[in-house]
């Protein structure tokens, strides 16, 4: 396995020690017109952990990620990122502060190659201005090649060398998910939000993906928030689990504890709502 990033040398990182609070949401509520997607939710994510967010369909998991990286703005509550309290995030701010994510429905740039998709993830780290971009020469070329090298390391890490020059629209679903992870990793994030990274994968692909997620977490120290339906995967990967149901938090704790929580069992069996 290639170690491609020296965590200490990564730019834009907080320098928080493992186990300190990296992100906290307090009393966040979000609604769309009459639909309450999230009701008064609080939880935190610690530096270096794998934090799973689980819950039945429509529980508000994706909405929660969207709040964290500023795509949705909650009506109530605060988000504390690296000790800084704010009412809401903004997408650009989140991205430049080291929050990356993948999407439940693959959101790749379909017309671009695998390589270009991942290179786009490095855009925030590229500095050469418009003039140099026009020339694509000298400093601009040097910068382009430096980032290409980084991207090649990620490509090696995720074992997608063979599809480097393939337009991603032509790739099978499992590989698209992997490219999406690569694009997020290219941002060298401090917090990585993964929205059902294994949905629709076969067993082998799931095992590969689990391995990559663990490697990212352990080798680069990247903090990970993971939405996943497969309980086996959640048990294996996560340090702590937060459980949502109908937009409310119903449990929070280590995987074994959450698994035996009666509220959680009821929610998954649909007991309280007779769904």
């Amino acid at each position, binding site marked *: 396995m290639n170690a491609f990033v020296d965590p200490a040398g990564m730019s834009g990182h907080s320098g928080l020690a493992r186990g300190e609070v990296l992100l906290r949401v307090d009393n966040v509520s979000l609604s769309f017109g009459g639909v309450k997607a999230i009701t008064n939710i609080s939880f935190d994510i610690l530096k270096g952990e794998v934090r799973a967010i689980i819950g039945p369909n429509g529980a508000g998991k994706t909405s929660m990620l969207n709040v964290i*990286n500023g*795509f949705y703005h909650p009506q109530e509550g605060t988000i504390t990122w690296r000790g800084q309290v704010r009412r809401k995030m903004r*997408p*650009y701010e*989140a*991205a*430049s502060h080291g929050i*990356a*994510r993948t*999407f439940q429905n693959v*959101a*790749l*740039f*379909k*017309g*671009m190659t695998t390589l*270009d998709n991942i*290179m*786009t*993830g490095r*855009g*925030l780290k*590229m500095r*050469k201005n*418009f003039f140099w*971009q*026009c*020339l*694509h*020469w000298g400093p*601009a*070329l040097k910068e*382009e*090649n430096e980032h*290409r*090298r980084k991207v*090649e390391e990620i490509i090696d890490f995720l074992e997608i060398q063979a599809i480097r020059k393939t337009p991603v629209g032509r790739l099978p679903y499992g590989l698209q998910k992997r490219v999406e992870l690569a*694009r*997020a990793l290219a*941002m060298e994030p401090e917090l990585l939000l993964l929205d059902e990274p294994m949905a629709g994968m076969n067993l082998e692909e799931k095992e590969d993906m689990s391995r990559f997620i663990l490697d990212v977490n352990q080798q680069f120290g990247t903090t990970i928030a993971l939405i996943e339906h497969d309980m086996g995967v959640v048990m294996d990967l996560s340090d702590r689990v937060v459980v949502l149901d109908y937009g409310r938090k119903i449990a929070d704790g280590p995987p074994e504890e959450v698994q035996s929580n009666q509220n959680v069992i009821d929610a998954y069996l649909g007991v309280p709502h007779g769904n």
Partner: protein
Amino acid sequence: MLYREAGQFKSSYAADQAIFPIAQDRWAVWAFLAVAFLVVPFFVNDYWTNAILLPLLIYGMAALGLNILVGYCGQISLGTGGFMAVGAYASYKLMTSFPELNMIVVVLLSGGITAAVGVMFGLPSLRIKGFYLAVATLAAQFFLVWLFNKVGWFYNYSATGQINAPDRFLFGFQLTGASAQPWVKYLFCLTLLTVFALIAKNLVRGRIGRNWMAIRDMDIAAELIGVRPLMTKLSAFAVSSFYIGMAGSLLFAVYLGAVEVGESFGINVSFLVLFMVIIGGLGSIVGSFMGAAFLVLMPILLKNFMVDGLGLMPVTAKHVEILLMGLLIIFFLIVEPHGLARLWQITKEKLRMWPFPY
């Protein structure tokens, strides 16, 4: 077996990212440029420049500009004619107000002015998309044509409402005006187009181009990885309009010499350039030129064939030509929606396999 990349191993990322990674392509392009720059100028005459070469180069420039906006950044525009008019009138005002100004500077400044206007009309693109944006740019088209018709200052209050390009010289050679030599006009346009095609290629293979394409393909994901939608879209409008403005400037100053805005820069021009981009291939630099070549050359070929070959009346031939062009466009869109550039690419892939089918 002549055309393949076997044995051409890339030893650096720079080589892998070269514009033409395959050596045969590189040679072909150098040869093409050598002929265009060193041979053609000795043989051009008025017919060749006026009927074929200048329209090809100038519409190639316009198509290239529009392709940056539509093909690379995914923002639709029906205002191309209007933006070309901005370039033309900017040139006219610059040439008449500052007679000493070098023509290269005139064309570049006209591009710059058009870029500013393009950014203004691009502002709504942050809020509106697709058809609605098309309508907004259509409004720009009509507004600009109306403006240049209405406000006398733009045409220096000339009685006809036309603008005429005064005689200008570049390095001692007459470039604009009635007695300018065909080869001077040709080389001037060719040089500008070559330089700016290279710049366009550089932009689209770097950070800025990737951001454009990211916005085109999935704007939400792009935003969440730190691409700023407003900046990115406006830069596409600016660059695109810059090219289109230069095309308008050249069309007026070098090619036509005299322009009436509604006639030369009407809505039909917007559609013509859009067709070039679509037929040539959205999101392809070389496709822009193929599209321009197709729409400039095809009518001439058809006309020659019908009038000289079949002996049709020129008027009848014109009608049939319009009909056939329409059919050809539809045919192309059905057979290869990705345009001539894609057809070309497929041909090359086949060639690479040749003589083995797989």
